[in-house]
């Protein structure tokens, strides 16, 4: 059995058992143990390819462990632990099972040695995450799930077609570096792009994440996008094209986040922005850049989960995540505020916090490889990150207008896990070497140089000063209930209208054609029926004599043929 083993089997096995555990407490603790078991199963293994599975005439490498997949396996296990712990109070079996399957599929995909296994788990994450959003069970959420699911399956389909073409061109399905030269690799690249929220394909992120349950969003935030980053890093490291995509990706969400009313959508935009950083890192492709991407992905999972958790806690207590309804909670939820601030400081790369040690890798890699404009874009983007995630999230939730909320602090399990995540962020910030040791390529980069710290602090505090002044002189965008259109307007409003018009004309034409064709088809069917129906020539019971006649005729023909 061992040669079929892979870590995600533990998640799937647990997912199979969980529904049958009646006591909610017991079920939650059982689920909590799963990430540890998952990580332990591959923690001590040497790098190499372990499990093989024959599939038609392929021999699928379903468990490959190497530098890149180990660290992603680790961070996915941590993410699984965080999201499961945060969902401690959840009773809904669907959400629990789908989160386990989701984590398992993501880890399975990370360890996939070839494209087919990757595709299987790629689809697994799509299905499980859709169920996770669906678990909220409100009409809006279900509609959003359908859109989300279509996007994810579209990505899966592109991947599948890409693999088929890739196999036809190169004859191999191994999952390693691919050049963007053939249609197959382009389709695979696009498939990864879909799930990595490239510009114009990004809006499923902002559309679906706010639709999930607060605990569901925490799970969602970790796996799909980081899996896409891993896939891009594995497949297309060093592709020039990615640098400019990454720059674009890190820039445009900043503006949307600044004016967004729903905090979880702000965080979704921020997630999109952070992905931009990672994509730039992959695009540059130098060992330092790739390390930067991996490090950034690693820390991003933690602090993004922390931010989503703090917003989740606020939702849990107040029932809303809208800036227009929140404010003044610092008196009632001090711990959540503290953890939220730690998260915000980490994301805005404040020194002594995890973001600082990771993002600087990417920035210096970009600068050292001479992409001035891209570097400028990333600097603007990091200021933007400070704006919407560093300041807007904590400020609008805990300070801002006092809406008169008098709520209790978040329940203890939530606080504990948020504390764990916050300490993790601080630890990585203070001791970057722990993180650097895990990275795939050896790192000789020292984040804490005086120059770097000072410039970073200057930038952050002057931005904060600007914020304070904008608030003071009331220029800061006011918060009121509203939504902002994004690319999803195209397929939620524009295309349906176009479709409605087109179907109107098509039906008119079809009706004209139908009248004309009906008579013809009717007559043809009658002819067939007359020949084959129960009284038809072919089906009637013929007199014996005629049967024998047929025999004689056939014999005659064959004998006649004998004389030709």
């Amino acid at each position, binding site marked *: 059995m061992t040669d079929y083993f892979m870590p995600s089997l533990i998640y799937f096995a647990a997912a199979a058992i969980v529904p049958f555990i009646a006591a909610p407490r017991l079920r939650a603790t059982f689920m909590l143990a799963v990430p540890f078991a998952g990580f332990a199963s591959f923690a001590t293994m040497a790098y190499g390819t372990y499990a093989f599975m024959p599939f038609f005439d392929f021999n699928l490498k379903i468990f490959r462990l190497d530098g890149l997949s180990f660290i992603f396996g680790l961070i996915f296990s941590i993410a699984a632990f965080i999201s499961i712990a945060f969902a401690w*109070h959840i009773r809904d079996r669907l959400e629990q099972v789908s989160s386990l399957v989701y984590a398992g599929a993501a880890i399975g995909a990370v360890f996939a040695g070839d494209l087919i296994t990757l595709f299987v788990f790629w689809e697994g994450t799509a299905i499980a995450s859709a169920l996770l959003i669906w678990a909220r069970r*409100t*009409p*809006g*959420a279900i*509609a*959003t799930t359908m859109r989300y699911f279509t996007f994810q399956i579209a990505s899966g389909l592109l991947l599948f077609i890409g693999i088929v073409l890739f196999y036809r061109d190169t004859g191999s399905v191994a999952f390693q570096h691919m050049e963007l030269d053939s249609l197959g690799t382009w389709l695979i690249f696009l498939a990864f792009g879909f799930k990595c929220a490239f510009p114009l394909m990004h809006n499923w992120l902002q559309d679906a994440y706010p639709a999930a*349950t*607060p605990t569901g969003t925490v799970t969602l935030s970790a796996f799909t996008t980081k899996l896409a980053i891993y896939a891009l890093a594995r497949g297309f490291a060093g592709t020039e094209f990615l640098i400019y995509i990454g720059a674009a990706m890190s820039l445009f969400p*900043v*503006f949307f986040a*600044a*004016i967004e009313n729903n905090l979880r959508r702000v965080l979704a935009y921020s997630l999109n922005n952070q992905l931009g950083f990672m994509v730039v890192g992959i695009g540059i492709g130098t060992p330092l850049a790739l390390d930067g991407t991996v490090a950034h992905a690693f820390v991003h999972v933690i602090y993004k989960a922390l931010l989503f958790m703090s917003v989740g806690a606020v*939702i*849990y*207590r*107040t*029932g*809303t995540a*809208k800036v227009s309804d929140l404010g003044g909670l610092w008196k009632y939820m001090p711990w959540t505020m503290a953890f939220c601030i730690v998260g915000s400081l980490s994301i805005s790369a404040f020194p002594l916090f995890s973001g600082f040690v990771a993002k600087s890798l990417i920035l210096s890699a970009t*600068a*050292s490889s001479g992409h001035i404009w891209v570097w400028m874009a990333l*600097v*603007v983007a990091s*200021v933007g990150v400070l*704006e919407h995630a560093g300041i807007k999230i904590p*400020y609008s939730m805990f*300070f*801002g*207008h006092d*809406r*008169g*909320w*008098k*709520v209790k602090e978040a329940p203890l399990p939530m606080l504990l896990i948020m504390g764990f995540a916050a300490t993790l962020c601080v630890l990585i910030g203070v001791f970057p070497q722990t993180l650097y040791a895990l990275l795939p390529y050896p790192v000789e980069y020292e984040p804490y140089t*005086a*120059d770097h710290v*000072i*410039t*970073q*602090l*200057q*930038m952050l*505090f*002057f*931005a904060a*000063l600007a914020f*304070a002044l*904008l*608030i*003071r002189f009331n*220029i*800061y*965008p*006011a918060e*009121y209930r*509203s*939504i*902002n*259109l994004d690319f999803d307007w195209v397929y939620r409003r524009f295309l349906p209208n176009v479709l409605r018009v087109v179907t109107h004309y098509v039906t008119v034409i079809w009706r004209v054609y139908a009248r004309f064709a009906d008579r013809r088809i009717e007559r043809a069917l009658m002819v067939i029926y007359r020949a084959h129906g129960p009284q038809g020539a072919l089906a009637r019971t013929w007199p014996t004599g005629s049967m024998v006649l047929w025999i004689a005729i056939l014999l005659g023909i064959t004998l006649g043929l004998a004389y030709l």
Partner: protein
Amino acid sequence: MNTYITKPVLIGLAVICATLVGADFLRDGHGYFSFENWPLIYCAIGFVVYGVLIILAKGLRVLIERPENYYGDLAIDSEPEPGMGPIAPEKSGVPHD
């Protein structure tokens, strides 16, 4: 929105910024690009970029802002956000404005 950005907060911020400007000469200036080594460049970047960014965002908002029920009832924005199960009982304050 400005109940918390009182005068002492502003003064505090100004003091921090002043010290940072003071610390600027500590930088030994071996950034990758030439303009990185100009004095106070990062302070300027932080302040100016932030302001421009907010103004551009407000401009964008004018274009793409829509009422909450723009996508009809089948959208999460127009339906009440039930959070986790029943809205936490202790909530007594009602959001106004």
